[in-house]
Protein backbone atom coordinates (compact mmCIF):
# COMPACT_ATOMS: atom_id res chain seq x y z
CA UNK A 1 0.00 0.00 0.00
CA UNK A 2 2.82 2.37 1.03
CA UNK A 3 4.73 1.50 -2.15
CA UNK A 4 1.66 2.27 -4.25
CA UNK A 5 1.34 5.73 -2.58
CA UNK A 6 5.00 6.41 -3.25
CA UNK A 7 4.53 5.64 -6.93
CA UNK A 8 1.42 7.86 -7.14
CA UNK A 9 3.34 10.80 -5.63
CA UNK A 10 6.25 10.21 -8.00
CA UNK A 11 3.90 10.11 -11.00
CA UNK A 12 2.21 13.39 -9.90
CA UNK A 13 5.59 15.12 -9.45
CA UNK A 14 6.66 13.77 -12.85
CA UNK A 15 3.52 15.14 -14.54
CA UNK A 16 3.97 18.57 -12.87
CA UNK A 17 7.61 18.74 -14.01
CA UNK A 18 6.66 17.63 -17.52
CA UNK A 19 3.96 20.31 -17.81
CA UNK A 20 6.32 22.99 -16.50
CA UNK A 21 9.05 21.98 -18.97
CA UNK A 22 6.45 22.02 -21.76
CA UNK A 23 5.37 25.50 -20.67
CA UNK A 24 8.93 26.83 -20.50
CA UNK A 25 9.64 25.40 -23.96
CA UNK A 26 6.51 26.92 -25.50
CA UNK A 27 6.80 30.37 -23.91
CA UNK A 28 10.51 31.12 -24.05
CA UNK A 29 11.05 30.32 -27.71
CA UNK A 30 9.50 32.13 -30.65
CA UNK A 31 8.06 29.09 -32.41
CA UNK A 32 5.57 28.26 -35.10
CA UNK A 33 2.36 26.74 -33.74
CA UNK A 34 1.84 23.09 -34.70
CA UNK A 35 -0.93 22.09 -37.11
CA UNK A 36 -3.08 20.77 -34.23
CA UNK A 37 -2.62 23.95 -32.19
CA UNK A 38 -3.50 26.11 -35.21
CA UNK A 39 -6.65 24.09 -35.94
CA UNK A 40 -7.82 24.11 -32.30
CA UNK A 41 -7.14 27.85 -32.03
CA UNK A 42 -9.00 28.60 -35.28
CA UNK A 43 -12.09 26.58 -34.26
CA UNK A 44 -12.13 28.00 -30.74
CA UNK A 45 -11.71 31.63 -31.87
CA UNK A 46 -14.28 31.17 -34.63
CA UNK A 47 -16.78 29.97 -31.99
CA UNK A 48 -15.93 32.92 -29.71
CA UNK A 49 -16.34 35.31 -32.62
CA UNK A 50 -19.70 33.79 -33.63
CA UNK A 51 -21.07 33.84 -30.07
CA UNK A 52 -19.86 37.45 -29.83
CA UNK A 53 -22.04 38.68 -32.72
CA UNK A 54 -25.09 39.48 -30.51
CA UNK A 55 -22.79 41.36 -28.10
CA UNK A 56 -21.41 43.53 -30.92
CA UNK A 57 -24.95 44.11 -32.20
CA UNK A 58 -26.13 45.11 -28.71
CA UNK A 59 -23.17 47.48 -28.29
CA UNK A 60 -23.97 49.20 -31.60
CA UNK A 61 -27.65 49.53 -30.57
CA UNK A 62 -26.74 51.01 -27.20
CA UNK A 63 -24.40 53.50 -28.87
CA UNK A 64 -27.19 54.54 -31.28
CA UNK A 65 -29.76 54.83 -28.47
CA UNK A 66 -27.49 57.14 -26.51
CA UNK A 67 -27.32 59.45 -29.52
CA UNK A 68 -31.16 59.40 -29.95
CA UNK A 69 -31.72 60.49 -26.37
CA UNK A 70 -29.75 63.70 -26.82
CA UNK A 71 -31.28 66.82 -28.35
CA UNK A 72 -30.52 67.78 -31.93
CA UNK A 73 -27.84 70.30 -31.10
CA UNK A 74 -25.90 67.88 -28.99
CA UNK A 75 -26.22 65.27 -31.69
CA UNK A 76 -24.84 67.68 -34.30
CA UNK A 77 -22.06 68.71 -31.97
CA UNK A 78 -21.10 65.14 -31.19
CA UNK A 79 -21.25 64.25 -34.89
CA UNK A 80 -18.98 67.17 -35.69
CA UNK A 81 -16.53 66.25 -32.97
CA UNK A 82 -16.58 62.60 -34.02
CA UNK A 83 -15.94 63.53 -37.66
CA UNK A 84 -13.18 65.93 -36.67
CA UNK A 85 -11.58 63.19 -34.59
CA UNK A 86 -11.95 60.70 -37.46
CA UNK A 87 -10.38 63.14 -39.96
CA UNK A 88 -7.48 63.72 -37.58
CA UNK A 89 -7.00 59.98 -37.15
CA UNK A 90 -7.12 59.44 -40.93
CA UNK A 91 -4.66 62.28 -41.49
CA UNK A 92 -2.29 60.72 -38.98
CA UNK A 93 -2.71 57.32 -40.62
CA UNK A 94 -2.05 58.88 -44.05
CA UNK A 95 1.09 60.56 -42.70
CA UNK A 96 2.16 57.22 -41.34
CA UNK A 97 1.47 55.51 -44.68
CA UNK A 98 3.46 58.18 -46.55
CA UNK A 99 6.38 57.56 -44.20
CA UNK A 100 6.09 53.86 -44.83
CA UNK A 101 6.06 53.76 -48.61
CA UNK A 102 7.81 50.36 -48.68
CA UNK A 103 4.97 48.80 -46.71
CA UNK A 104 1.34 47.91 -47.33
CA UNK A 105 -1.10 47.70 -44.46
CA UNK A 106 -3.59 44.97 -43.60
CA UNK A 107 -6.50 46.27 -41.54
CA UNK A 108 -7.86 44.01 -38.78
CA UNK A 109 -10.27 44.06 -35.83
CA UNK A 110 -9.34 43.01 -32.31
CA UNK A 111 -11.35 40.03 -31.04
CA UNK A 112 -9.91 39.56 -27.57
CA UNK A 113 -7.47 41.31 -25.28
CA UNK A 114 -4.86 40.16 -22.82
CA UNK A 115 -6.46 36.97 -21.53
CA UNK A 116 -4.48 35.34 -18.73
CA UNK A 117 -3.49 38.79 -17.39
CA UNK A 118 0.31 38.61 -17.67
CA UNK A 119 0.83 38.05 -21.39
CA UNK A 120 0.00 41.54 -22.82
CA UNK A 121 -1.37 40.15 -26.07
CA UNK A 122 -4.24 40.87 -28.45
CA UNK A 123 -5.88 38.53 -30.93
CA UNK A 124 -6.87 39.96 -34.32
CA UNK A 125 -9.20 38.53 -36.96
CA UNK A 126 -6.66 38.21 -39.80
CA UNK A 127 -4.16 35.41 -40.27
CA UNK A 128 -1.85 33.82 -42.81
CA UNK A 129 -4.70 33.71 -45.37
CA UNK A 130 -4.56 37.54 -45.42
CA UNK A 131 -0.77 37.58 -45.77
CA UNK A 132 0.17 38.07 -42.11
CA UNK A 133 3.42 36.55 -40.88
CA UNK A 134 5.30 36.47 -37.56
CA UNK A 135 7.34 39.57 -36.60
CA UNK A 136 5.28 42.02 -38.68
CA UNK A 137 4.79 45.41 -36.99
CA UNK A 138 1.31 46.38 -35.77
CA UNK A 139 0.23 50.04 -35.64
CA UNK A 140 -2.82 52.17 -34.89
CA UNK A 141 -3.37 55.79 -35.98
CA UNK A 142 -1.46 56.85 -32.83
CA UNK A 143 1.65 54.83 -33.60
CA UNK A 144 3.34 51.50 -32.99
CA UNK A 145 1.60 49.09 -30.57
CA UNK A 146 3.39 45.77 -31.04
CA UNK A 147 4.34 42.89 -33.31
CA UNK A 148 2.82 39.64 -34.51
CA UNK A 149 4.06 36.64 -32.49
CA UNK A 150 1.79 33.81 -33.62
CA UNK A 151 -0.41 33.17 -36.63
CA UNK A 152 -3.04 30.68 -37.67
CA UNK A 153 -4.91 30.63 -40.98
CA UNK A 154 -7.56 33.14 -39.85
CA UNK A 155 -6.25 34.75 -36.64
CA UNK A 156 -3.04 36.28 -35.29
CA UNK A 157 -1.66 37.18 -31.89
CA UNK A 158 -0.11 40.60 -31.29
CA UNK A 159 2.41 41.12 -28.50
CA UNK A 160 1.99 44.62 -27.11
CA UNK A 161 4.86 47.04 -26.52
CA UNK A 162 3.84 47.14 -22.86
CA UNK A 163 5.46 43.71 -22.52
CA UNK A 164 8.91 45.04 -23.46
CA UNK A 165 11.69 43.15 -21.66
CA UNK A 166 15.18 41.77 -22.28
CA UNK A 167 13.94 39.49 -25.05
CA UNK A 168 11.74 42.09 -26.76
CA UNK A 169 13.45 45.44 -27.42
CA UNK A 170 13.07 48.15 -30.04
CA UNK A 171 15.70 50.36 -31.62
CA UNK A 172 14.51 53.99 -31.43
CA UNK A 173 15.74 57.55 -31.95
CA UNK A 174 14.91 60.78 -30.17
CA UNK A 175 14.69 63.85 -32.35
CA UNK A 176 15.76 66.66 -30.05
CA UNK A 177 16.37 70.16 -31.47
CA UNK A 178 18.70 69.64 -34.46
CA UNK A 179 20.23 66.29 -33.50
CA UNK A 180 19.15 62.68 -33.17
CA UNK A 181 19.92 60.35 -30.28
CA UNK A 182 19.82 56.60 -30.90
CA UNK A 183 18.98 54.04 -28.23
CA UNK A 184 16.96 50.99 -27.31
CA UNK A 185 13.57 50.85 -25.60
CA UNK A 186 14.18 48.15 -23.04
CA UNK A 187 11.25 48.11 -20.67
CA UNK A 188 7.85 49.42 -19.61
CA UNK A 189 7.16 50.93 -16.21
CA UNK A 190 3.63 49.82 -15.32
CA UNK A 191 3.38 52.25 -12.40
CA UNK A 192 4.27 55.39 -14.37
CA UNK A 193 2.94 53.94 -17.65
CA UNK A 194 6.05 54.98 -19.59
CA UNK A 195 8.66 53.19 -21.69
CA UNK A 196 12.26 53.14 -20.47
CA UNK A 197 15.35 53.87 -22.54
CA UNK A 198 18.65 53.10 -20.77
CA UNK A 199 22.31 53.82 -21.43
CA UNK A 200 22.12 57.31 -22.94
CA UNK A 201 25.40 59.17 -22.41
CA UNK A 202 25.37 61.75 -19.61
CA UNK A 203 26.63 64.51 -21.95
CA UNK A 204 23.75 64.16 -24.39
CA UNK A 205 21.27 66.99 -24.18
CA UNK A 206 17.68 65.76 -24.48
CA UNK A 207 14.65 68.00 -24.25
CA UNK A 208 11.35 66.94 -22.73
CA UNK A 209 8.50 66.43 -25.23
CA UNK A 210 10.96 65.41 -27.98
CA UNK A 211 9.43 62.87 -30.34
CA UNK A 212 10.59 59.24 -30.17
CA UNK A 213 10.34 57.14 -33.35
CA UNK A 214 11.57 53.76 -34.56
CA UNK A 215 14.88 53.61 -36.46
CA UNK A 216 14.31 50.45 -38.48
CA UNK A 217 17.72 49.13 -37.38
CA UNK A 218 16.23 46.09 -35.66
CA UNK A 219 14.87 44.84 -39.03
CA UNK A 220 11.43 44.15 -37.53
CA UNK A 221 9.93 47.60 -37.13
CA UNK A 222 10.02 50.04 -40.07
CA UNK A 223 11.68 53.39 -39.43
CA UNK A 224 9.73 56.54 -38.68
CA UNK A 225 6.81 55.14 -36.67
CA UNK A 226 6.01 57.32 -33.68
CA UNK A 227 6.18 55.68 -30.27
CA UNK A 228 5.73 58.65 -27.97
CA UNK A 229 7.37 61.71 -26.46
CA UNK A 230 10.05 62.14 -23.82
CA UNK A 231 8.29 62.65 -20.49
CA UNK A 232 11.26 62.79 -18.10
CA UNK A 233 15.01 62.15 -17.88
CA UNK A 234 16.85 60.70 -14.89
CA UNK A 235 20.55 60.17 -14.20
CA UNK A 236 21.73 56.73 -13.03
CA UNK A 237 23.29 56.10 -9.58
CA UNK A 238 26.85 56.75 -10.81
CA UNK A 239 26.00 59.88 -12.88
CA UNK A 240 27.44 58.15 -15.96
CA UNK A 241 24.34 57.62 -18.03
CA UNK A 242 20.80 58.85 -18.36
CA UNK A 243 17.53 56.95 -18.38
CA UNK A 244 14.89 58.48 -20.61
CA UNK A 245 11.21 57.85 -19.95
CA UNK A 246 8.94 57.91 -22.98
CA UNK A 247 5.21 58.57 -22.71
CA UNK A 248 3.38 56.42 -25.32
CA UNK A 249 1.49 58.44 -27.93
CA UNK A 250 -1.39 55.98 -27.91
CA UNK A 251 -2.86 53.76 -25.25
CA UNK A 252 -2.66 49.98 -25.65
CA UNK A 253 -5.65 49.64 -23.32
CA UNK A 254 -8.61 50.19 -25.56
CA UNK A 255 -7.84 49.14 -29.14
CA UNK A 256 -10.53 47.96 -31.56
CA UNK A 257 -8.84 48.30 -34.96
CA UNK A 258 -5.20 47.87 -35.99
CA UNK A 259 -3.06 47.85 -39.15
CA UNK A 260 -0.45 45.18 -39.74
CA UNK A 261 2.50 46.42 -41.85
CA UNK A 262 3.75 44.11 -44.58
CA UNK A 263 6.82 44.81 -46.71
CA UNK A 264 5.85 45.22 -50.37
CA UNK A 265 8.59 42.84 -51.49
CA UNK A 266 7.69 40.07 -48.99
Amino acid at each position, binding site marked *: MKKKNKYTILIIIGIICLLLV*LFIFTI*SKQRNLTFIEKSVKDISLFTTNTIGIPFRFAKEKIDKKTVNQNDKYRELESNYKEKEKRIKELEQLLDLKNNLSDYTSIEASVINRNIGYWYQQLTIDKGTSSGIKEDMAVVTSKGLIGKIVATTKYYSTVKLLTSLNNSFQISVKITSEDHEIYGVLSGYDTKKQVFQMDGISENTNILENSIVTTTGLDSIFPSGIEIGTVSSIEKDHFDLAQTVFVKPSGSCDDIYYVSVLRRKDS
Partner: protein
Amino acid sequence: MIIIISFFLEGIVSNYIPISSMFFPLFTLISFVVASYYYKEEIILKMSFIIGLLYDITYTNTLGLHMLLFYSIVYFLLLFHKKLKNNFFNFLWIGIFTIGFYLSMSYFILLLIGYLEFDAFLLLNAFKNCILFNVIYLLVMYSMEEIIHRKKR
Protein backbone atom coordinates in the same frame (compact mmCIF):
# COMPACT_ATOMS: atom_id res chain seq x y z
CA MET B 1 -21.75 23.60 -19.68
CA ILE B 2 -21.18 26.55 -17.29
CA ILE B 3 -17.41 26.11 -17.76
CA ILE B 4 -17.61 26.08 -21.55
CA ILE B 5 -19.90 29.15 -21.59
CA SER B 6 -17.52 30.98 -19.23
CA PHE B 7 -14.54 30.04 -21.39
CA PHE B 8 -16.05 31.67 -24.49
CA LEU B 9 -17.59 34.55 -22.53
CA GLU B 10 -14.17 35.46 -21.14
CA GLY B 11 -12.85 35.95 -24.68
CA ILE B 12 -15.86 38.04 -25.73
CA VAL B 13 -16.04 40.26 -22.64
CA SER B 14 -12.28 40.96 -22.70
CA ASN B 15 -12.82 42.85 -25.96
CA TYR B 16 -15.14 45.41 -24.34
CA ILE B 17 -13.00 46.18 -21.31
CA PRO B 18 -9.78 48.24 -21.30
CA ILE B 19 -6.78 46.10 -20.36
CA SER B 20 -5.78 47.97 -17.20
CA SER B 21 -9.31 48.63 -15.93
CA MET B 22 -10.71 47.23 -12.68
CA PHE B 23 -12.95 44.80 -14.57
CA PHE B 24 -10.55 42.14 -15.74
CA PRO B 25 -12.46 38.91 -16.52
CA LEU B 26 -11.32 35.53 -15.16
CA PHE B 27 -14.60 33.80 -15.87
CA THR B 28 -13.22 30.33 -16.65
CA LEU B 29 -11.46 30.20 -13.30
CA ILE B 30 -14.57 31.41 -11.45
CA SER B 31 -16.76 28.83 -13.19
CA PHE B 32 -14.55 26.10 -11.66
CA VAL B 33 -15.25 27.50 -8.16
CA VAL B 34 -19.00 27.00 -8.69
CA ALA B 35 -18.91 23.85 -10.87
CA SER B 36 -16.61 21.97 -8.49
CA TYR B 37 -19.41 22.01 -5.89
CA TYR B 38 -22.34 21.12 -8.12
CA TYR B 39 -20.86 18.53 -10.50
CA LYS B 40 -19.18 15.14 -10.19
CA GLU B 41 -15.55 15.11 -9.05
CA GLU B 42 -14.22 13.00 -11.91
CA ILE B 43 -15.91 15.08 -14.61
CA ILE B 44 -14.71 18.38 -13.14
CA LEU B 45 -11.13 17.15 -12.82
CA LYS B 46 -11.11 15.95 -16.44
CA MET B 47 -12.76 19.19 -17.58
CA SER B 48 -10.17 21.31 -15.76
CA PHE B 49 -7.39 19.56 -17.65
CA ILE B 50 -9.09 19.82 -21.06
CA ILE B 51 -10.24 23.44 -20.60
CA GLY B 52 -6.73 24.30 -19.31
CA LEU B 53 -5.27 22.90 -22.53
CA LEU B 54 -7.82 24.80 -24.65
CA TYR B 55 -7.14 27.99 -22.68
CA ASP B 56 -3.39 27.65 -23.25
CA ILE B 57 -3.74 27.05 -26.97
CA THR B 58 -6.49 29.59 -27.69
CA TYR B 59 -5.56 32.52 -25.52
CA THR B 60 -1.88 32.33 -24.56
CA ASN B 61 -0.12 30.33 -27.37
CA THR B 62 1.59 28.15 -24.78
CA LEU B 63 1.10 24.64 -23.38
CA GLY B 64 1.07 23.35 -19.82
CA LEU B 65 0.56 26.26 -17.43
CA HIS B 66 -3.22 26.46 -17.34
CA MET B 67 -3.54 22.68 -17.56
CA LEU B 68 -1.49 22.45 -14.39
CA LEU B 69 -3.02 25.48 -12.63
CA PHE B 70 -6.67 24.66 -13.36
CA TYR B 71 -6.22 21.01 -12.40
CA SER B 72 -4.51 21.83 -9.10
CA ILE B 73 -7.01 24.60 -8.29
CA VAL B 74 -9.95 22.24 -8.90
CA TYR B 75 -8.25 19.58 -6.75
CA PHE B 76 -8.02 22.05 -3.83
CA LEU B 77 -11.55 23.34 -4.48
CA LEU B 78 -12.94 19.81 -4.18
CA LEU B 79 -11.20 19.45 -0.81
CA PHE B 80 -12.63 22.80 0.37
CA HIS B 81 -16.15 21.95 -0.74
CA LYS B 82 -16.05 18.66 1.19
CA LYS B 83 -15.25 20.50 4.42
CA LEU B 84 -17.42 23.59 4.03
CA LYS B 85 -21.16 24.22 3.93
CA ASN B 86 -22.90 25.49 0.82
CA ASN B 87 -23.57 29.19 1.35
CA PHE B 88 -22.60 32.31 -0.53
CA PHE B 89 -20.08 33.58 2.03
CA ASN B 90 -18.09 30.36 1.81
CA PHE B 91 -18.15 30.61 -1.98
CA LEU B 92 -17.09 34.25 -1.73
CA TRP B 93 -13.94 33.66 0.28
CA ILE B 94 -13.07 30.52 -1.69
CA GLY B 95 -13.48 32.60 -4.88
CA ILE B 96 -11.22 35.38 -3.61
CA PHE B 97 -8.65 32.82 -2.45
CA THR B 98 -8.78 31.10 -5.85
CA ILE B 99 -8.21 34.37 -7.75
CA GLY B 100 -5.29 35.19 -5.43
CA PHE B 101 -3.79 31.70 -5.79
CA TYR B 102 -4.14 31.72 -9.60
CA LEU B 103 -2.62 35.19 -10.04
CA SER B 104 0.28 34.65 -7.64
CA MET B 105 1.11 31.14 -8.90
CA SER B 106 1.07 32.20 -12.57
CA TYR B 107 3.08 35.33 -11.70
CA PHE B 108 5.75 33.42 -9.77
CA ILE B 109 6.09 30.74 -12.46
CA LEU B 110 6.51 33.45 -15.13
CA LEU B 111 8.96 35.21 -12.82
CA LEU B 112 10.98 32.02 -12.29
CA ILE B 113 11.41 31.41 -16.01
CA GLY B 114 12.37 35.05 -16.60
CA TYR B 115 9.31 36.06 -18.62
CA LEU B 116 8.39 38.79 -16.12
CA GLU B 117 10.55 40.98 -13.93
CA PHE B 118 9.78 41.26 -10.20
CA ASP B 119 7.47 44.14 -9.40
CA ALA B 120 5.28 43.92 -6.30
CA PHE B 121 3.12 46.75 -7.65
CA LEU B 122 2.28 44.65 -10.71
CA LEU B 123 1.00 41.78 -8.56
CA LEU B 124 -1.00 44.05 -6.23
CA ASN B 125 -2.45 45.83 -9.24
CA ALA B 126 -3.49 42.48 -10.70
CA PHE B 127 -5.39 41.60 -7.48
CA LYS B 128 -7.08 45.00 -7.51
CA ASN B 129 -8.11 44.67 -11.16
CA CYS B 130 -9.42 41.13 -10.88
CA ILE B 131 -11.34 40.91 -7.61
CA LEU B 132 -14.46 43.06 -8.06
CA PHE B 133 -15.72 41.98 -11.49
CA ASN B 134 -15.07 38.29 -10.86
CA VAL B 135 -16.77 38.32 -7.46
CA ILE B 136 -19.87 39.75 -9.20
CA TYR B 137 -19.63 36.99 -11.81
CA LEU B 138 -19.29 34.43 -9.00
CA LEU B 139 -22.45 35.81 -7.37
CA VAL B 140 -24.37 35.50 -10.67
CA MET B 141 -23.09 31.98 -11.39
CA TYR B 142 -23.78 30.79 -7.82
CA SER B 143 -27.35 32.18 -7.88
CA MET B 144 -28.03 30.54 -11.27
CA GLU B 145 -26.70 27.15 -10.18
CA GLU B 146 -28.70 27.34 -6.92
CA ILE B 147 -31.93 28.06 -8.83
CA ILE B 148 -31.28 25.24 -11.34
CA HIS B 149 -30.44 22.68 -8.63
CA ARG B 150 -33.34 23.67 -6.37
CA LYS B 151 -35.72 23.08 -9.27
CA LYS B 152 -34.12 19.68 -9.91
CA ARG B 153 -34.52 18.71 -6.25
